[in-house]
């Protein structure tokens, strides 16, 4: 009897391991090799016609990245620096050398974002944002993490986002601005896309999440 159960369990384990999705360690190996501690948020690259998207989205990444366990330079302070140094256009850095951020700030990695869509459909009360995130090492220049989110927020009904992960929950509670504001969709997009980012030094999941399943590289969701 025991043998049969054990055999059954072994088979089950094998089968379930075959269907296990890719792990974070496999999807983002460079994150575990380099173990960045400090992140500078780059001014978003805005590919939409909505000029305000850049400024408003810029600061929204700070809180979720801190909650992931990283040291994040205050975007309000770095924004001033970028503007003073006429470096407020991140396009010039996205494929270029990043050692300057290592030297000036001490940053291990730079978070780039490309805003591809940022709009509000007044008829249905739907906010749509599409943002690609690219975290690059300032040391080696390699891409450590990249993911894209296409998030629609249905503002016609007020309410929480349901059970969509702990981080989403944390951020959702922080989201209590007027529901009509497009920045809300930007914040939700962060929650979805950054949920897969391996944890940083200040998180108790640090170096313990490499075997966690990784989500898809392109996240598409509609939330209320």
């Amino acid at each position: 009897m025991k043998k049969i159960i054990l055999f059954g369990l072994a088979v089950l384990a094998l089968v379930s391991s075959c269907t296990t999705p890719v792990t974070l360690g496999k999807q983002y190996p460079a994150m575990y090799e380099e173990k960045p501690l400090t992140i500078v948020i780059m001014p978003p690259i805005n590919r939409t016609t909505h000029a305000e998207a850049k400024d408003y989205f810029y600061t929204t990444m700070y809180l979720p990245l801190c909650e992931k366990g990283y040291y994040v330079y205050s975007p309000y302070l770095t924004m001033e620096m970028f503007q003073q140094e006429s470096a407020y256009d991140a396009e010039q850095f996205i494929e270029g050398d990043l050692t300057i951020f290592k030297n000036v700030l001490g940053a291990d990695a730079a978070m780039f974002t490309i805003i591809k869509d940022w709009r509000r459909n007044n008829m249905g009360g739907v906010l749509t944002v599409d943002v690609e995130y690219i975290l690059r090492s300032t040391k080696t220049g390699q891409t450590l993490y990249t993911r894209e989110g296409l998030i629609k927020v249905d503002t016609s009904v007020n309410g929480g986002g349901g059970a969509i992960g702990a981080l989403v929950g944390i951020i959702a509670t922080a989201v209590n601005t007027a529901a009509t504001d497009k920045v809300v969709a930007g914040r939700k997009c962060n929650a979805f896309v950054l949920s897969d980012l391996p944890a940083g030094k200040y998180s108790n999941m640090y170096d313990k999440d490499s075997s966690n399943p990784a989500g898809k590289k392109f996240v598409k969701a509609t939330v209320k």
Partner: protein
Amino acid sequence: MKKIFIAAIIVLAFTSCDTTKPLYSWYNYEDVTYQYNKKATEDLQAKLLEQYKKLTTKQKGGRGVVPPGLNSEYGFLLYKTGKKEEGLKYLKQEVSLYPESEKYISRIIKQLEK
């Protein structure tokens, strides 16, 4: 047989309590800074300073410390609004809490004192 059951229950119990407590308390930080960013009125500045005070003194998150960057933000605003001594105190606090910020913060202090 019993042992297997117990093992299965333990595994289930562990996987189900995989929830994370926020590392920090943020209060209304996002909204207040966002509003101030949109329109830097005196009223909102007072609100923001009040918010920073709360954030730097009442941390109930998992880590129980001020989040990265916040002491420096508070210090910078204090300095800019004329409270130079106090501002510098918070900027230095950032470095003692997060030594990795030393390079950047000393650059800010240098620029402010120019």
